[in-house]
């Protein structure tokens, strides 16, 4: 059986569960037969437990509020000019970086494109659209030239000429 030296150096890692399975098995085998190393392990375990308790108690009782007050006191308050500049910057330059500005411009262009697309692609509508016609006789509706529509109410009497 080898001496305790190599195993003692591994006890810390054993507690941290950082050993390889073979190393762990080897340490455990040694511990079963070595009372000195068992005692060492118990001491290490107890020491770790004390340290953990001490740290947890220290964090819980730490006067964080007072510490922050102290930091805040040491910080220089912004001057009136700095405050006005900050407010103005936030109002007139809502974009913090050029990248954000580029995205904003791109979004605006997309909106502009979507709004104007129907105007650009819509087919031209005639200048005159006859919606409805009522007559006791015959009617003819036709598109003339130069933005003109013609509604022709024919004479009821037979024998008269229509269109040329």
């Amino acid at each position, binding site marked *: 059986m080898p001496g305790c030296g190599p195993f003692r150096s591994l006890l810390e890692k054993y507690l941290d569960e950082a050993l390889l399975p073979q190393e762990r098995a080897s340490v455990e085998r040694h511990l079963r037969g070595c009372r000195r190393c068992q005692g060492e392990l118990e001491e290490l375990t107890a020491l770790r437990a004390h340290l953990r308790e001490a740290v947890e108690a220290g964090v819980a009782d730490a006067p964080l509020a007072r510490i922050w007050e102290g930091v805040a006191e040491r910080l220089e308050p912004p001057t009136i000019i700095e405050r006005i500049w900050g407010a103005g910057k936030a109002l007139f330059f809502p974009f913090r970086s050029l990248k954000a500005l580029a995205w904003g411009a791109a979004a*605006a262009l997309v909106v502009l494109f979507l709004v104007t697309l129907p105007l650009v692609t819509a087919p031209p509508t005639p200048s005159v*659209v006859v919606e409805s016609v009522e007559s006791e006789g015959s009617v003819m509706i036709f598109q003339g030239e*130069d*933005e003109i*529509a*013609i509604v022709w*109410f024919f004479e009821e009497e037979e024998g008269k000429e229509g269109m040329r």
Partner: protein
Amino acid sequence: MKKLFFLGLLSAFFITSFSTVALGEEVGIGIRVILASHEGKAIDARLQDIQKNLDTLNYSSYQLLQERSFLLAEGELAQLPLPGKKEVRVKLLKAQGETAEIAVEILRTEKKAKATLKKGGTLLIVVEDDDVIVAISAQGT
């Protein structure tokens, strides 16, 4: 959040600037009463703008009897006498931007028409019974 608000404002600006719709506006409506005839070949010089269209009809001469312009608001009427003791009545039904929707009625007959005219558009109503042509034009505001 600020960014979204700014983008919203920008979008609203573009949308409103491209959808300016004038509501309740007045529209200029021109009405010409023309007497057509199969005799002669005289065409009134004041009808030059619609001469090409008059040439497609089966008359040979055209005399302008009356020409009036009206500034109509929605629901308002314009009325002119026609030969044969009839009258033409034009009512502005709706005006929106560059377009005007009108109702035309030849009184004492059953002849009626509804049309939408853009600024510069003309509607020719041919009443063959009396050899009368009514030219109705939208002249804008």
